[in-house]
């Protein structure tokens, strides 16, 4: 099985000595038995049989790979990395250390703002941490996966329940199998194949025909009756794949990400004018 990669290589994240831009799929030969890859703008995290390895920009974090175990479930964005460790706890990488995040089972009784997905995690986690220290009998929640973007973090426990900012998200009882996080919105897929969206809808990324923001996960009505098998989210758009092999897409199309022609005059990317040769 061969591993190929293309894209930004200015920090040596794909191949250490290669050109800064790989515009054609290039075989990656210096890593063996790669079974998982996480990509950010300036760095890439690889999982091999021998352990974890990070390439590209390291942000002065030189002990990261030693402090990660093989069985961890990782989620990574450009500025943030989170994981589910061997104890089923959610940990966040900060200043060269893994910090454990605290969650509580019940939504707080006062009106905590669960707002759009773009929210500050740190403050809320400290509040949750101090509050959970008070409840001595809180049983440990076991998490199965975590999903991050630069400004948001969603954790999924073993019962398929979603948490954000230390507390459960309010929505119907369906079990969630996977979550996708965009720049300003979130998507979730239930075990029944229903897609939920929430957050900012300014670019149509919620898929509900409106442009407003919704604060709690709601099913995408126009997909009612269609069983979705997998979902993916870009910065401001969404894709849902049905069990019969149809792909549904919605959201922003400013550079043609939905597969429709984008506006003729708009440059798709600043990078497009750069002449290159691999």
């Amino acid at each position, binding site marked *: 099985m061969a591993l190929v990669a293309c894209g930004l290589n200015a920090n040596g994240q794909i191949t250490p000595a290669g050109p800064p831009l790989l515009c054609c799929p290039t075989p990656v030969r210096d890593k063996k038995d790669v079974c998982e890859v996480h990509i950010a703008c*300036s760095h890439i995290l690889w999982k091999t049989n021998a352990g974890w390895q990070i390439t590209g*920009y390291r*942000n002065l974090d*030189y002990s990261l790979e030693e402090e990660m175990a093989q069985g961890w479930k990782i989620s990574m964005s450009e500025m943030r990395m989170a994981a589910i460790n061997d104890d089923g706890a959610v940990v966040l990488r900060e200043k*060269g250390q893994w910090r454990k995040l605290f969650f509580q089972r019940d939504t707080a009784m006062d009106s905590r703002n669960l707002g759009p997905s773009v929210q500050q995690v740190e403050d809320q986690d400290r509040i949750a941490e101090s509050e959970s220290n008070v409840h001595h009998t809180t049983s440990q929640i076991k998490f199965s996966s975590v999903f991050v973007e630069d400004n948001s973090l969603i954790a999924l426990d073993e019962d398929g329940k979603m948490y954000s900012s230390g507390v459960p998200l309010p929505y119907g009882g369906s079990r969630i199998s996977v979550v996708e996080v965009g*720049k300003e919105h979130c998507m979730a897929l239930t075990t029944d194949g229903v897609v939920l969206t929430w957050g900012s809808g300014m670019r149509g990324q919620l898929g509900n025909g409106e442009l407003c923001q919704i604060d709690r996960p709601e099913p995408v009505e126009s997909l009612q009756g269609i069983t979705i098998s997998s979902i993916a989210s870009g*910065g401001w758009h969404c894709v849902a794949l049905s069990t019969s092999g149809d792909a549904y897409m919605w959201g922003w199309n400013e550079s043609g990400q939905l597969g429709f022609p984008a506006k003729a*005059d708009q440059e798709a990317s*600043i990078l497009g004018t750069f002449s290159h040769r691999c």
Partner: protein
Amino acid sequence: MNFPDCASTGSIGCGQEGRKAESMCSLPKPANIDNNRDAEGEILQKLAELVRQGLEVVRRRVSEEAEEVLRSTKTEEPVVGENRAGETTTQATLQERAKRGRESEARGERGLIKRTREEEAHTDEEDEAKPLVLSSSGHASSPTGRRSREENGFKDDEGTTDRTRPGASNSYPRHFTEDMLPVGVEEEVVGGWVRGTIARLLSFVGFPSTPREAAVAANALLDYTWQKLNTGHWQDVPITWRLVFTWGSIAVVHILLADLQLSLSGGANTTQAHFSSAAEIVRACDRGLLMGAPVGDNPLHKVASLFNSHARLSATMADLPAEALPVAQQDEATVHFPLPSGRCPPLDRFLLNYMNKSVPVKLLGIVDHWPALKMWRIPYLRELAGARTVPVEVGARYTDSTWSQTLLTLDEYLTRYVSQPAAGAPTGYLAQHQLLDQIPELRDDLLVPDYCHLGEEEPRLHAWLGPRGTVSPLHHDPDHNILVQVLGYKYIRLYAEDQSPLLYPHPDPLLSNTSQAEIEGPQADWPLLQQAQYHDLILAPGESLYIPPRYWHYVRSLSTSFSVSFWWR
């Protein structure tokens, strides 16, 4: 890329070696005998001179920024390397690891870039023909000062080398080092990769060419920052990200200028390719201006106006002689309830009778001396700013669901939407744009009326340029407004604030300052509107209108029109 002079090097990949070789073995262009080629040669010579000027503008501004950063950090206590009481063990171990890591990084991944930069620095020093000028700090420059700074200052040691080294202010141009950040850019917000990339890019400004890696990194930085600028509401975007976009754009423009300088002296590219490069430079400047943060003495303005003429040559534009003719009123409008007018009212009368009492008035004679009244014609605008990128609103009204915004060059906009609109095509309006900030030369053609200084804050200027038939739906704004008509004619209708219940304001909070009614639409559709009292008028060139805060106004252009509005509070 073609490097015919260096075919002997055999390098196909054209990485750093190829470009370095080209700069060393490029020969001056042989004299041309052909007349056409002479004219072309003159144009290209002029372009090369503009490139030299553009590079100087950018380098000087970056050097000033570096001075500013050093000045502000000299007042702070150096933090790194000190043993502070209360430091936790994790901090200490982190610094230890960081030190180990930096040493291995200097040997490993970053070694390639560092080495190349130092090589180029030594090669190009002899080629630097332009005499260094006096720096802003008043010290005369010397080439030796620059060399010693390179030996001492460019290495990325930890600690305080550059900040506290005595005699540092003697060298010009002041260069960015990798531990410096432009004023206002916060590392905690932008993260390590952005911070390192922008610092490294700015440290290259001042060298005739940059490593290929830098151009790719610059574009990646701008792409990533562009995502941040598009996250959430524009007014909530932290200024730090907009500053990164500005300085990143300045770095990209510098790379493009240096590339153009190389290719002009190399003589390999076609003339048309050089014009395209000029257009690319103007586009990069405008992108930085439109999405970046306002920065004092922004070099992007000056560079964009330097290359506007050559950039325009890259696009084939049809000649439209009708544009030179004076603009007459083309569409009809009937004035039912004329608004009283006043000719140059004294400032105190204006404040007491109109501003304080929320009474609109048509103002005559207040802009009689504006050069703009004589100069602002379509051909003049094209020559001054034809290649500049402007935001255009497409669609009949901003309340329509099909309304959208797009970016066009001014040349494209004037041809496609003003002078030669296609039949049945939607209207395009260059509306509510700070064109006069983007193109400061236009500001020189007018004077801000004294009345606009009667508030507490400085007035903001907006330009409104469009064809006949543009409509601004009935709406109100929170600030005082003087609308000056410079070119063409507009029909305007005004309703007082107390008429609001009859005006069908939008229920949606985002549009609550806008009426749902079509003012000149079928009267039966909007019965309440017919009971409302209003004033109306036609604004001709040289005439102005004062609109009080929260006063409803509706505007329709009756010809090609160019107006300037002054908002103040």
